[in-house]
């Protein structure tokens, strides 16, 4: 595996799941290795997630598709579908009962087949990473059975009901009650925080720290709370404007 192939895979978290973009002009087996390394590195971000694979114009053969599926299932991910502009790849995927979408997102950087290399290099779109002072906004209740992953901070306009799950690489702000699972800084950022108008979680986690039953008992119902990590422990404080 050379340095280049490290950039051959890019991710983007969306409401429906994670999009994995695989660059078309690199050797596929290298890309697959790289994908597995990256999944293992970001275990928390990927755990149980639904993924869509963007293959661009790459024409897969059966062995390649199987090696890709193998990586996905071995890491206990749910495959939502395959995005591809190649008819051969789409037909192959359909024969494996995989949902296909025609298209190409190209998050991993390669600009497309037809453009020449100089133009291509200039037009490389960088994987989308939000600046730390910006956030996604989710304008819906998170109901039981839904699991959301965000590649940054998120504001949830609604409750997170018991049985629902929100994971974010950054902070989580809930304009409603948290009754389900929240995990901020799931990539290990201990500086992340979780804010909710009513903090009645079943599990609250910041980076690798989880709130204990004792912490939960201290929280008053119906009072906005801000949870942060201090000295390796989660503390939840009633929120007021002066802080």
């Amino acid at each position, binding site marked *: 595996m050379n340095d280049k192939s490290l950039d051959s895979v890019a991710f983007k978290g969306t409401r429906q799941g994670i999009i994995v973009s695989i660059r078309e002009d690199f050797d596929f087996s290298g890309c697959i290795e790289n994908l597995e390394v990256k999944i293992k590195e970001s275990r928390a971000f990927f755990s149980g997630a639904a993924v869509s694979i963007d293959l661009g114009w790459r024409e897969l053969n059966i062995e390649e598709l199987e090696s890709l599926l193998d990586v996905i299932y071995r890491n206990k991910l749910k495959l939502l579908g395959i995005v591809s502009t190649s008819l051969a790849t789409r037909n192959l995927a359909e024969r494996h009962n995989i949902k296909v979408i025609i298209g190409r997102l190209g998050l991993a950087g390669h600009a497309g087949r037809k453009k020449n290399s100089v133009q291509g290099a200039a037009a490389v779109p960088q994987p989308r990473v939000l600046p730390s002072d910006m956030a996604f906004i989710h304008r*819906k*209740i998170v*109901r*039981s*059975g*839904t699991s959301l992953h965000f590649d940054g901070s998120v504001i949830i306009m*609604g*409750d997170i*009901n*018991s*049985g629902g799950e929100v994971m974010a690489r950054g902070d989580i702000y809930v304009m409603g*009650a948290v*009754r389900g699972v929240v995990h901020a800084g799931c990539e290990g950022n201990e500086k992340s925080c979780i804010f909710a108008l009513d903090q009645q979680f079943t599990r609250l986690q910041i980076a690798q720290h989880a709130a204990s039953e004792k912490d939960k008992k201290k929280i008053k119902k119906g009072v906005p709370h801000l949870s942060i990590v201090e000295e390796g422990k989660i503390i939840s404080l009633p929120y007021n404007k002066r802080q």
Partner: protein
Amino acid sequence: MSKVFVVTSGKGGVGKTTATANLGAGLASIGKRVVLVDADIGLRNLDLLLGLENRIVFDLVDVLDKKCRGYKQALIRDKRFESLFLLPAAQSKNKDAVKAEQMKELMDELRKEFDYVLIDCPAGIEGGFRNAIIGADEAIIITNPEISAVRDADRVVGILESENKSKISLIVNRLRSELVKKGQMLSIDDIRGILSIDVLGVVPEDHKILFHSNKGEPVILDKFSPAGDAYRKIVKRLHDPGEPHEEIKQSKNGGLRSFLLKLMRSTMEKLEKGAS
């Protein structure tokens, strides 16, 4: 404009089938043409609640497999109402016997013929549930005031929303206002707070329901039953969404009793103060 409703809940035993039978009878009693579709294949019950179990010849699976001449041959007319029909489920098959597209096609056919199509959905969120919801425009969620039923309802609402069924309303069944008052049961506001969907109506706990179910007669026809009363209000609201929303009365004899209790408590407090 005809409407296709699915009556669903996630959890079993909360009163889906009872609600379907009563809403159907209620809509038929105001002259609407109604068909009730029992989608609970393998565990059919709707026929019993309507007292029509002896009349079943063909069933839903026969219709979808084209073993009879169209759905009309399988429809059973109700004994009491000219315009109420039942399409019974099969009892000897299981839920894999039908396909989602077939159900959707059938619903579109029924829609042409009837004002209201009510689908009685099986419990759970597996294939049978998916088949039942696919042809529906609107969903009616039935829940009981208990946390397990509310959580399941929440899951079902989530699935319905992701299937683009945007109009979802709620019936809270088997509410016992005396327990709510004591804080031993979830109140309507608690449930509304969790699910955040419109409440179509609240049906109080009523021992008469069991009696009427065993007799094969919808409770909505009983003029003296509180549950029947609640269903009549829900039917009015289904028919005309503008119908004012009457909250369930907390207790019939609450007025004088609570006044006396309050008076007693305050005198006791005064006496205690005086003693100390």
